[in-house]
């Protein structure tokens, strides 16, 4: 899952930021998702232009750790977002 930009699927969900949390709801089935901490950061870094490596690098910089340290976790999380139908790649 490298190279292609990660994008949020427009019209698929509603989003609301409350305190330190982002809450998402899929509009077709009502499923809820709550993002905070690192998951929220990654979600906010998904802009339709950045690929997984770029998102990983920016997240790593935020936490002042080598990108390789968190690369697998970020990939797993983005995969989960894809599986949840919230984002797509390419």
């Amino acid at each position, binding site marked *: 899952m490298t190279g292609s930009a990660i994008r949020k699927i427009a019209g698929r969900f*509603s989003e*609301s930021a*409350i*305190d330190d*949390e982002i*809450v998402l*709801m899929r*509009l077709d089935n*009502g499923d*809820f*998702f*709550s993002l*905070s901490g690192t998951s929220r950061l990654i979600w906010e870094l998904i802009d339709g232009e950045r690929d997984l490596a770029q998102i990983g690098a920016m997240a790593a910089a935020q936490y002042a750790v080598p990108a390789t340290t968190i690369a697998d976790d970020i990939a797993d999380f983005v995969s989960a977002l894809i599986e949840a139908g919230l984002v797509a790649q390419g």
Partner: protein
Amino acid sequence: MTLSAAQELLAHETRVTFGTAPRHLDGDGLEPSQLQLLGDELLLRGRGELFIHYRKGHGIVVDQGPGVEEDEIASWLNGSVYSGVASLNGFLPLHASAIAHDGKVHAFTGASGAGKSTLATGLGRFGFPLFCDDTLLIDLSNPDQVMCLPGHKRLKLTQTAVELTGATPCARVASFIDKVYARPLAGIVNEPMPLAELAFLEFGGSRTAARLSAGESIMRLEDGHQTAQIFQSAAQIDRARYFAARTRIAASARMTRLVRLADPDEFDANLAFVAAHITAREGSPA
């Protein structure tokens, strides 16, 4: 829309006359105890030959057939019809009872039997006036503040709740409802107020009052009670708008998971715990 205008609107729309009501809104007859919403209209069939019809701008018409008790009419008017009329006029009803403290509303919601009315009644012993029982109307028309409209002033309690709270029982709610009306112990509130806290009531092994996350709050606000179903049908609201409404409420006030002990012998201590929780938050942000 000013809040006083909201109260006037609701009073106007819930005015009741007796007359002839339709038997259906879309060609299909209603079963007993069924409520139908279509466009700007509501039609409810009671347990027998009672039909209650509302059309926006025209108030409520009660068609009282033979054998229909006055108590049953009042029960429907104060329950499902009230929620439906409020929903058709842009208010969001929550299945909750509430008290007032320091100019703000502290509401209690939960499944039937969770003790909403009992708790609101008992808190009167600590001087908290009743804001509403059973249905709390939320006014989201002000983008800067989520407001609550004061509601029904007669508590509906089981006999056990009457004994626990020390409330003075009045008439039975209806022959088919095993509850009585009771007067609030510390008076009532007649003015709209902002929402300070919405507590989701549970019984458990220890008394706790834990703040809920935004996500859990929003999920819990989507309860399966008929009040929420009435609102969604009346407002013809899609998921996105309903989600937006719930997030506004969750963002505007503290959302709390409030656990009390179920043993009736612990009721007084439960009340003291909740009262202390409410007053401890005085001046604290939502």
